[in-house]
């Protein structure tokens, strides 16, 4: 620990600043421009550096850590290729509003712009996918820049911030001054909601006969689940959640309708279609949620609370916009609600009728294994208490349907960007942050190969993640669209002939591996995996090849277009 007033070099200042930002972990990979930083790191004991095997892995790990803990994830990579390898992970964190600070080494200041060895204009490249980014031009600016980066990443709507650090700056020295406060003239997020607007909302809500809460990831970022639970139960208002919002309200509560949207539940989508008042909190009317905007919640008076004013009236025109933090919104709403409100029993009864009409079910027999069974079984065995990470594809949507999320920060998934390869590193990052709950990953046989190298990181760090590989020998989600909308031309989605033996792959990495191909062996394998805590474990679930995720509202469609079963049942094998 150094103190303000000491003369330090850029690398020492770097770690001193991270220390003051309470950073526990850095997910990083060294290189030429960072040699000085890694020299200093050699003697740093209070911050753990996790050596990844690809810089994309570092970004997803940092994001997994951030989403599990609420604290910003930190990435450290070298210039040029190290920096460009972080682009997908940064874009992912940007789309899903995850707090993250990415430090990139850069060629020496004097060489910038000369096409120097391992030079890339990473500030230019990441401008549209970061909340903000910086190029440090003077060692005296390093501390304040790092302070600002953490401040920006974690305040207002969270997001990734990048700091580019030229090699000469990391070697140069100056008197270290830790800025106790930070003030950025152009960054003053509105946290407190306008009270008149909240009163107006309260008034409308009390009079609504068929109200519905539409909850997004913003409620989880704002740590507002308690307020949501209190408000919904007190007012007897049903709650539907987006993929990122799952867990904000307990999925096992009768007022929970599960997820809405493209693969949402039948009853949640019917409720959206029929409600007379929609209260959107920390959600952004994404196209995967709304389908055709003209027919989305057509009868509803729409109230929209979001911390980011650009989200308001972007995709859909709302009647009552309320900019501010979700926690502030919900807590002031609770205060402002009049004592008397409409009776909602018939509305809830109607929703329950829809629930019974078309429940989420699957058939199962002793010899075939289905993804739905695996997820359902994991949900039961973990009692909904796991931190669940997914990759992207069919297994991701089934996770939203068949895992019962009870607590916030329980689902970690790539929603906005839909990044295959996200799951494995994100699970590792989450497990560094959360030690008292099991971290389970559902990943496809396609996606696991996109960052399989990080299995080394998990094995080496003895990270006890449960990798539940949903192996359907297909790029299942693409196959589903091919079956439904592209004349059953299964163009380049059959992985059956080319997939490796995943058990052998895992074992070669030093990872415990199991295999299951029927419900009985699957149940046992899940039990064994959950009991194993000495490192990662992979279970290769050989599920049926041609299963489909339903319900499905086709892209750009309306609730009336919702598909509930296969168009051509003969295609089922």
């Amino acid at each position, binding site marked *: 620990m150094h103190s303000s007033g000491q003369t330090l070099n850029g690398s020492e200042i770097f770690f001193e600043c991270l220390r003051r930002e309470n950073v526990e972990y850095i997910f990083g990979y060294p290189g030429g421009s960072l040699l000085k930083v890694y020299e200093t790191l050699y003697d740093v004991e209070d911050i753990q550096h996790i050596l990844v095997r690809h810089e994309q892995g570092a970004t997803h790990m940092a994001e997994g850590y951030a989403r599990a803990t609420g604290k910003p994830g930190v990435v450290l990579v070298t210039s040029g290729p190290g920096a460009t390898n972080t682009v997908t992970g940064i874009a992912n964190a940007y789309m899903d509003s995850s707090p993250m600070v990415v430090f990139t080494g850069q060629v020496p200041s004097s060489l910038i712009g000369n096409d120097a060895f391992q030079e890339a204009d990473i500030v*230019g490249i990441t401008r549209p996918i970061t909340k903000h980014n910086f*190029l440090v031009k003077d060692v005296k600016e390093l501390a304040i820049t790092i302070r600002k980066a953490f401040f920006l990443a974690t305040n207002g709507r969270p997001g990734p911030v990048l700091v580019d650090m030229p090699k000469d700056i990391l070697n140069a020295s100056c008197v270290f001054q830790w800025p106790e406060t930070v003030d950025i003239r152009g960054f003053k997020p509105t946290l407190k909601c306008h009270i008149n607007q909240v009163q107006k909302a309260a008034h409308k809500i009390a009079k609504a006969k068929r109200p519905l809460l539409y909850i997004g990831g913003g409620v989880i970022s704002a740590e507002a689940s308690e307020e949501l639970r209190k408000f919904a139960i007190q007012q007897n208002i049903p709650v539907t959640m987006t993929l990122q919002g799952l867990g904000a309200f307990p999925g096992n509560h009768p007022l929970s309708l599960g997820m809405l949207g493209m693969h949402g539940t039948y009853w949640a989508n019917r409720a959206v279609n029929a409600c007379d008042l929609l209260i959107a909190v920390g959600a952004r009317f994404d196209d995967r949620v709304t389908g055709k905007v003209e027919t989305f919640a057509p009868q509803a008076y729409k109230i929209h609370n979001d911390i980011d004013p*650009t989200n308001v009236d972007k995709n859909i025109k709302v009647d009552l916009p309320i900019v501010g933090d979700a926690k502030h919104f919900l807590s002031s709403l609770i205060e402002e609600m009049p004592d008397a409100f409409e009776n909602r029993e018939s509305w809830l009864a109607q929703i329950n009728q829809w629930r019974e009409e078309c429940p989420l079910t699957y058939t199962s027999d002793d010899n075939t294994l289905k993804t739905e069974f695996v997820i359902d079984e994991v949900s039961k065995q973990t009692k909904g208490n796991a931190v669940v990470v997914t990759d992207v594809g069919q297994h991701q949507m089934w996770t939203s349907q068949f895992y019962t999320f009870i607590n916030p920060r329980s689902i970690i998934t790539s929603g906005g960007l839909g990044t295959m390869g996200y799951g494995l590193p994100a699970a590792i990052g989450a497990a560094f942050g959360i030690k008292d709950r099991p971290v389970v990953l559902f990943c496809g046989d396609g996606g696991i190969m996109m960052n399989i190298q990080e299995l080394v990181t998990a094995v080496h760090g003895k990270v006890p993640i449960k990798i539940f590989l949903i192996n359907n020998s297909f790029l299942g989600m693409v196959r589903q669209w091919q079956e439904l909308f592209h004349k059953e031309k299964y163009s380049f989605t059959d992985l059956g002939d080319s997939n490796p033996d995943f058990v052998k792959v895992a074992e070669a990495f030093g990872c415990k591996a199991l295999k299951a191909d029927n419900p009985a062996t699957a149940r046992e394998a899940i039990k064994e995996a959950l009991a194993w805590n000495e490192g990662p474990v992979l279970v290769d679930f050989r599920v049926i090849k041609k299963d489909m995720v339903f319900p499905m509202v086709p892209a750009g469609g309306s609730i009336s277009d919702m598909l509930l079963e296969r168009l051509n049942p003969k295609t089922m094998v």
Partner: protein
Amino acid sequence: MKHIISVLVENKFGSLNRVAAMFSARGFNLESISIGETEDTEISRMTIVTRGEDQIISQVLKQLNRLVDTIKVTDLTRQPHVERELLLMTLKLSKPVQHEIFELINVFKGKVVDIKQKSITIEVIGSPDKINTTIDIFKPYGIKELARSGAVAIHRGE
């Protein structure tokens, strides 16, 4: 509808790029953009001319505000403001029309900034509408080259 937006930004490397890149990334129309220092050397003023329906313009304003380097965004369109653009234009000069050209320069309150045997360079200052008209009127005489500054604008004083 056309909107003229005044933006105060931190006078920092990359600020202009951030604004321009945001316009292209979000598919907003950008008719002109001009930037220069203000009375405070740490702050620059940008004047942006864009077009769009109200819903789009409201997104433009919000997205501009969201940029961290942005200090203040004002849509001047419906407020009292002064708007000016500078035009520099080189015209062909020939004896038969010489007289007419000089007369027109007077009409538009233009200034001659350079004159050669066969060409004349003039400057005209005015609202973008006036600049458009100027160009239309001079076109038949043969415009060799022209440059427009893009609009700059400011609130009218109290």
